[in-house]
């Protein structure tokens, strides 16, 4: 038997936290931005085009730094040719998600001004090695905190090129209308530009969701990109802890 604590605890050794809100941090997706701007280029475009239809809150568990361990795991749990590797990484990442939600789902709900999320769903994978998207298995079967509320609400909509990372309201469609006006927690593994998660958030809201929050395991991060290195140098020495999350810090700072 493996416990969430045993599997998630060693991640403290290598996870890099996102920086708290402030100058140089995108106010939506937490990545590095030029100090003159509040939002990164992608989030600015999304906000300009879709404003209130976007997610109410975005919470990355940690940075998925290119060429570091978390980014490696977030790719290999889906695509590694070795099934035993996929399985071991799937269990570990499930522990990471469970640990975070166990300690911080309330913070995410608070950031959306709701007591809880009625439904938990995942962004559909665009490709996977064994048919089922392992993130749906993690959220819908492994993580005790989410599996009873899990519903696969989203399916692929209008096909876009794999390289198209933009926000498109028709990129996904919901599998039903959300007539009961639920609050929805949307899980994704990696946030690269937000194109997939924000497209999914719009689809959920258009179908009737009153609140949509996004929790991603890793915020993709390239140290060589723009102001990335300065951000990384500030974030890395702030030891990762399970005790606080980025949204909590935001509440405390207000």
């Amino acid at each position, binding site marked *: 038997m493996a416990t969430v604590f045993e599997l998630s605890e060693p991640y403290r050794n290598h996870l890099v936290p996102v920086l708290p809100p402030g100058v140089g941090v995108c106010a939506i997706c937490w990545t590095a931005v030029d100090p003159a701007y509040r939002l990164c280029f992608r989030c600015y475009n999304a906000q300009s085009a879709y404003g209130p239809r976007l997610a109410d809150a975005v919470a990355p568990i940690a940075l998925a730094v290119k060429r*570091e361990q978390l980014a490696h795991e977030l790719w290999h749990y889906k695509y590694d040719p070795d099934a035993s590797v996929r399985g071991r990484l799937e269990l570990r990442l499930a522990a990471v998600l469970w640990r975070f939600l166990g300690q911080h789902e309330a913070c995410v709900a608070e950031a959306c001004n709701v007591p809880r999320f009625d439904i938990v769903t995942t962004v559909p994978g665009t490709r996977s090695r064994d048919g089922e998207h392992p993130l749906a298995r993690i959220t819908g079967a492994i993580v005790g905190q989410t599996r009873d509320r899990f519903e696969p609400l989203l399916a692929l909509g209008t096909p876009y090129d794999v390289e198209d990372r933009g926000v498109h309201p028709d990129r996904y469609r919901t599998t039903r209308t959300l007539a009961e006006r639920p609050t929805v927690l949307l899980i994704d593994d990696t946030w690269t530009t937000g194109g997939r998660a924000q497209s999914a958030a719009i689809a959920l809201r258009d179908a009737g969701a009153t609140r949509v929050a996004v929790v991603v395991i890793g915020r993709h991060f390239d140290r060589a990109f723009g102001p990335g290195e300065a951000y990384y140098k500030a974030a890395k020495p702030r030891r990762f802890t399970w005790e606080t999350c980025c949204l909590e810090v935001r509440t405390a700072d207000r």
Partner: protein
Amino acid sequence: MTREEQATLVAWLRRPRVVWPTVTDQLEQHGSVREAVAEAAPAQASLFDTSAGDDLAAAAADLERWERAGIRMVSVLDTSYPSNLRMIHQRPPVLFMRGVDDERDAMSVAVVGTREPTPRGIEQTRRLAAGLIKRNIPVISGLAAGIDSTAHRTALASEGRTVAVIGTGIDRAYPPQNAELQDEIAAKGLVISQFLPGSPPTKVSFPMRNAVMSGYALATVVVEAAYRSGARMQARLALQHGRHVFLMRSLLEHDWAREYSQRPGVTVVDNADDVFGELQRLASESTAELVWAQ
């Protein structure tokens, strides 16, 4: 992987300014050497042109020569690439191997330490390695002088499985006086090198070797090590890989070890029994059901 693909990969890795971690990523993303090369750059794609075939022919001849010397090449695209190593971000694109694979290596332990051990360190290493072998746990080390050599020799003397992960090309030995030990390990166990055959030892090759050793084994035990040592470096790398680290209790006389002992995923141990108990828990994680309880 076909011989032609292997030759292409070797020729690619020999090109100037090729970044090996990028090669690994591209191989994995494309799933074949040919597609990865085609994507990498037109200059690399020309590796397949017969007009630019000198490099390819040389690589193919080398592969033949290595094979005759009992050296095989395994890439991340091969199913025989070690699973433990696949799980870490510092996995090299290729490994060169002499010896035989063994399923038991999935639950192996790296035993590392200083090149200038004290008699106490030697004695601890002997007891630890013999104890691990008695429990059928393969002993992995780096074939360096001191603790590494003691760990290998003890495993061999106990008729157990030992694997050397070395910091030079697989056809070279460092230190040179360990050449015979290296041959014996290749005959009875396995020698692994992530460097092209012929590569000399360099300042960076040993820490790179430590990363691969950490990845190959399920956990690392540091026996005796000063702050500035490859063994401490391996403990640091192992934690970055999410791997478990064991510190022999006597290490706690060092500030670095006291600091490490407070980290998650680090256990202070007295003997092989302590290592074995924790190792069984680590090995069961992969198949277990997940529960919240602490």
